[in-house]
């Protein structure tokens, strides 16, 4: 497979890729997660023992697999952007479909994880650690679903030939959002599942 050469700056130099509006949105999302991560750190400092004990009961394997799944899907999205820059709309749509497919894998693995926790009687009120674990992962889970919806919309438009090498802001917009979803997991997974 030959790697297509990627034009790095199809958008205006100096401005972020995609629609500027999505960057306001991404910034706000990162701020919300950032405050939550900060609150987690603050709470953990007051209950180190509790956090360490509860953390050991999490399923680190599924978390790690999901991290790989999302990073790979982000790579697929990069390939989709590279494809549309060369005018390969069919290929772009296929890469996006692959990314959405991995999004589905993430969702399924996560559902098994949630099911195991809920069956064990764990809820938001179990303890402070689980409050953070459940709310952070559920919020992120909802973002994965939203990201998949956005990618699906972009994919359908790409399939219809709605983007060109000159004008493909929509693809970059969707890609930017998906990378944000990925980025949050890359921070969330080590923070909540691993670091002790």
């Amino acid at each position, binding site marked *: 497979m030959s790697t297509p050469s990627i034009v790095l700056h199809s958008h205006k130099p100096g401005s972020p890729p995609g629609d500027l*509006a999505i960057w*306001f*949105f991404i910034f*706000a*999302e990162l*701020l*919300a997660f950032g*405050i*939550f991560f900060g*609150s987690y750190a603050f709470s953990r400092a007051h209950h180190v023992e509790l956090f360490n004990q509860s953390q050991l009961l999490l399923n680190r394997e599924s978390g790690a697999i999901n991290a790989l799944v999302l990073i790979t899907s982000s790579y697929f999205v990069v390939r989709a952007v590279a494809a549309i820059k060369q005018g390969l709309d069919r290929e772009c749509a296929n890469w996006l479909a692959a990314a959405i497919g991995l999004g589905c894998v993430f969702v399924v693995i996560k559902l098994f994880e949630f099911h195991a926790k809920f069956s064990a009687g764990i809820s*938001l*009120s179990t303890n402070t650690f689980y*409050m*953070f674990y459940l*709310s952070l992962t559920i919020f992120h889970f909802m973002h994965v679903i939203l990201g998949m919806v956005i990618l699906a919309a972009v994919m359908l438009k790409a399939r219809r030939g709605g983007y060109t090498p000159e004008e493909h802001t929509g693809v970059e917009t969707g890609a930017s959002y998906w990378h944000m979803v990925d980025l949050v997991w890359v921070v969330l997974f080590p923070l909540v599942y691993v670091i002790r």
Partner: protein
Amino acid sequence: MQYQSQKVAMPYFIAAIGLFTGQILFGLIMGLQYVMGDFLFPAIPFNVARMVHTNLLIVWLLFGFMGAAYYMIPEETESELFSPKLAWLMFWIFLVAGALTIVGYLLVPYAGLAKMTFNDLWPTMGREFLEQPLPTKLGIVVVALAFLFNISMTILKGRKTSIALVLLMGLWGLAVFFLFSFYNPSNLVLDKYFWWWTVHLWVEGVWELILGSLLAFVLIKVTGVDREIIEKWLYIIVAMTLITGIIGTGHHYYWIGTPEYWQWFGSVFSALEPIPFFMMTVFAFTMVNRRRREHPNKAATLWALGTGVMSFLGAGVWGFLHTLAPVNFYTHGTQITAAHGHMAFYGAYVMVVLTIISYAMPVMRGRAANSEKAQVMEMWSFWLMTVAIVFITLFLTAAGILQVWLQRVSDTPMGFMAAQDQVTLFYWLREISGVIFLIGLITYIASFFVGGETKEAA
């Protein structure tokens, strides 16, 4: 005025200003009762004055929103209103029902009113802001449904713009969340839990959508900036409002019997609630700076900019002040809340309604803008009312800080009434600011009667 049916907005705006005046008068009565407890007792007890003050506020803002919708929707959809007759009929029903309710509050003891209006069959009364008797509540639902039917049908048959759709979403949300006022579980925690679904999800949710679309409409008109740009801003503001505002409801759920996680959810999400308001400020100023025409209505532009700034200060900054759970632990239900309530309601909702009235009234009276003289007077009223509300807020904040300290923080905490005695000075200062607000309001009303040379409407 491009469409004849837009004119039905006029009675709504006039009624709004009339009820606004009533609200301020009762505010002044109540403000005086803070320092002279038996003022007008037993004719108008404090609890009745308070109920009239807050209920009139809500009703006149609803009149303003409805008038705004009737004015905006024909122009946005490029078609006449579905039924101007229905709009007129609903106007009278709403006005008469509202007036009867207020008369009921003033003439009949509240418990008697509850008995007369079948509250024992379906108890909904006695809760702050939702004190209306059952027939009034049902009347509000009927009026809201007829109004929404009228507006929705107009949008369905006409052009669909983002501004119209955001407004429609806000208005439907307003009606839907009002339905929770009929749900009154006997469990006090559940009662409060769902009470906020009306109160919070109105002012920190769907009303913000109405605010955003009204502001966007006036900004398009007075600045001539491309609709596309304005709509993009509107979308981001709406998204941010919903992301922060819905879970932000949690900031009312601290220590009232709800699960502890609400302290985190409420603190984190409501801490972000100032963002959409800040964006609204930046939005208003950016659009005015990028204006592509000099609209003769300078007063409307001033109100629009004022809405941006004051809603950010009142709702954003003063809200943030006491929204975090550890802070609210001390400030809950003190004068800090009253300070926030005054500036937020004025800055966000009063000002946006006055913005649309300022823009639309001259047009409905057959001119692009009022005379220079009338506008100068209107701008005086803007500054008088705005500065007065800033001082009311500052004095109440001072009273609140002192109250929190004396009553809840100090080593020898005082009782509620003893602490109230210590903050009397600030209540007097607040009352003086209130009188200045009234002078501003009288100036505002007078500005409608100033003549002078005007330009024909375009």
